[in-house]
């Protein structure tokens, strides 16, 4: 393959460029989210994230200090201060009338209506001087265009984690995900072993059923199960929406894939191992626990990753089988709520979204090997 591409430099270049283009298109959206989540919220609102490093221009208004505070110097009354206060910035233009907010360059002197003169420097310091002693509490308004230096902050994360409920939802998501990932594995492993290595009537039919159930849309299950949960809850006197309910639901919905993946893997293990163990007098239970289970680790790992990602990222099942309250709202559900209530507040949305996707991304990056193996076993082989 290398040889073919290598023969024609033009083709090689085309291949490199199209690969680079694909990578850029597929990573830039996530990158934009991540960069925005770290930016100052005022900057997100006025400039694109791709300008994050070059600072942003803002049109601002500040008042000078109260005229009462003017001091007399060489016969004129002077008010001094800095437009940025404690912060930093660069003034690129200023003015004193709302109609002409950028009439003067920094360093120029502007003459105001009452005969005062106003000078604003680049760094934001201003001098307002007048011949008569000024009076009053309200300072003169100064309009200015400021170039804010790029500002990165973790405030957005602090805000969403502790004030917007994302922190709590993170815990709820973990609560849903851990049992929903572990429980189906055990149940599926036993069934997969029986389907792979124990002859019994109806085995082929059961296997075909599992393959068929792989593609049954969840939508078919929602209404009957909702009814069932409501009546079981009513009968037992417990709420219909509980963590136990969603753990079992995810277990049920995850089983077809789990059985299918594990059976395919176990059926591929060498027959001799199992037969020789049988000859040695090992029971099926012993063979399963001592031989099959340890050998199947790669398949167990790939299913665990699938199920983890699927449960963590699920919104539909959580919306139907869990409540909308603080104790039960998972990350995906919370993100949806924020999307509705904080539609324009990108500092909240980007930081929240990043918190919800960081765990799956980490799992994905570290365990990609197993995931790819599972994908291949699940689709190429089984078709």
């Amino acid at each position, binding site marked *: 393959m290398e040889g073919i591409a290598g023969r024609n430099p033009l083709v090689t270049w085309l291949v490199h460029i199209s690969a680079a283009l*694909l990578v850029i298109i597929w990573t830039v*959206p996530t990158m934009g989210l991540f960069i925005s989540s770290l930016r100052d919220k005022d900057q997100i609102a006025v400039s694109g994230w791709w300008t994050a490093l070059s600072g942003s221009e803002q049109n601002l208004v500040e008042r000078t200090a109260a005229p009462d505070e003017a001091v007399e110097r060489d016969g004129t009354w002077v008010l001094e201060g800095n437009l940025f206060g404690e912060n930093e910035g660069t003034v690129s233009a200023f003015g004193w009338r709302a109609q002409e907010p950028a009439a003067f360059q920094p360093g120029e002197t502007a003459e105001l209506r009452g005969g005062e003169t106003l000078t604003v420097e680049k760094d934001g310091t201003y001098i307002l001087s007048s011949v008569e002693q000024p009076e009053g509490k309200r300072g003169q308004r100064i309009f200015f265009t400021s170039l804010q230096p790029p500002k990165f902050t973790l405030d957005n994360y602090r805000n969403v984690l502790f004030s917007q409920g994302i922190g709590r939802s993170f815990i709820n998501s973990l609560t849903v995900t851990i*049992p929903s990932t572990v429980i189906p594995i055990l149940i599926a492993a036993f*069934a997969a072993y029986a389907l792979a290595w124990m002859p019994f009537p109806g085995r082929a039919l059961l296997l075909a059923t599992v393959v068929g*159930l792989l593609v049954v849309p969840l939508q078919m299950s929602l209404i009957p199960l909702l009814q069932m949960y409501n009546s079981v809850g009513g009968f037992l006197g417990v709420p219909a929406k509980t963590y136990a309910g969603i753990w079992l639901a995810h277990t049920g919905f995850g089983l077809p894939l789990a059985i299918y993946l594990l059976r395919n893997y176990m059926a591929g293990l060498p027959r001799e191992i199992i037969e020789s163990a049988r000859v040695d007098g090992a029971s099926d239970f012993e063979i399963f626990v001592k031989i099959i289970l340890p050998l199947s680790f790669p398949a167990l790992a790939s299913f665990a990753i699938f199920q983890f990602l699927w449960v963590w990222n699920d919104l539909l099942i959580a919306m139907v089988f869990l409540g909308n309250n603080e104790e039960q709202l998972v990350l995906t559900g919370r993100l949806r709520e924020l*999307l509705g209530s904080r539609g324009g507040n990108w500092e909240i949305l980007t930081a929240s979204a990043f918190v919800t996707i960081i765990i799956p991304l980490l799992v*994905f*990056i570290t365990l990609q090997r197993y995931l790819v193996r599972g994908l291949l076993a699940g689709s190429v082989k089984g078709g």
Partner: protein
Amino acid sequence: MGQILSALGVVILGVAACAGYFWGSNVILDRIYPPRGPNAGANIMRANTIRPWLFVGPALFALTIYLIYPVFASVWLSLHDRSGETFVGTSNYTWMLNDPEFRQSFRNNMLWLLIVPAGATFFGLLAAAVTDRIWWGNIAKSLIFLPMAISFIGASVIWKFIYDYRGEGQPEIGLLNAIVVGLGGEPHAWITMPFWNNVFLMVILIWIQTGFAMVILSAALRGIPEETIEAAVLDGASPLQIFFKIKVPQIWGTIAVVWTTITILVLKVFDIVLAMTNGQWNTQVLANLMFNWMFRGGGDFGRGAAIAVIIMVLVIPIMIWNIRNASKEQ
């Protein structure tokens, strides 16, 4: 924190209960039919006919309750009124045929079915073909694969940010509008543009699914016997000819698998539409419409179930094809 501890407790308890069931039921079986003594042979036979059912029992039980029973129950409910008690025949289905919202959802779903599998397979094939030829291909693959880990709702936020519209005269902070303005065009509120907004939503799913298509197609491409390619090279075929005339025909089977897998996912697409538009501006799809009816006005279970049945019917051909293929392999 206490909640996580209790979840961990449940995990330990659940695993212990499962292990206890499997272990205990096996011990009991061996007690009833001991594999030694006078009847050892007959006992082992009997135990071996029962044991498989002990192994598949819990799985079978869960599958029945969560997937098999609901299929029949949904069909039954779709023939009943909103509360699920009065039989109404096929009136939910006739309602559906005349409901403009349903028709629109159906049309949109068909559009999704055409564009998303085609787009994801095309880009997946392209990505697989180019990344297999370059030294940094593995890194490129990982990066293209990465969106697979992102939830639909997370991806919706990412793309809503890209499609963001600020109104004319203001600096655009959405990437798409910034590019359009940079090229001298007019900014638009993409999400509210009928018809094209459907495509903008589909882009999100294509973006997520391309990595899946790429990984599987890349494995298939690497499985092609070298000799066929060498023969083509000797015959003087160009790289493009080799790709389209030698390689692609040999992986049709895998392309079909990728295509059908994404098709099934597309039929169930829900989160993206819910998060981006909730079906407004002519973007409704079946799964979201079904969810709406489940809770609309206290919930109309009959109509909701009828829509679910339609989704199921659309899946059935693929289901049969899968079962055929799987049993051919046995």
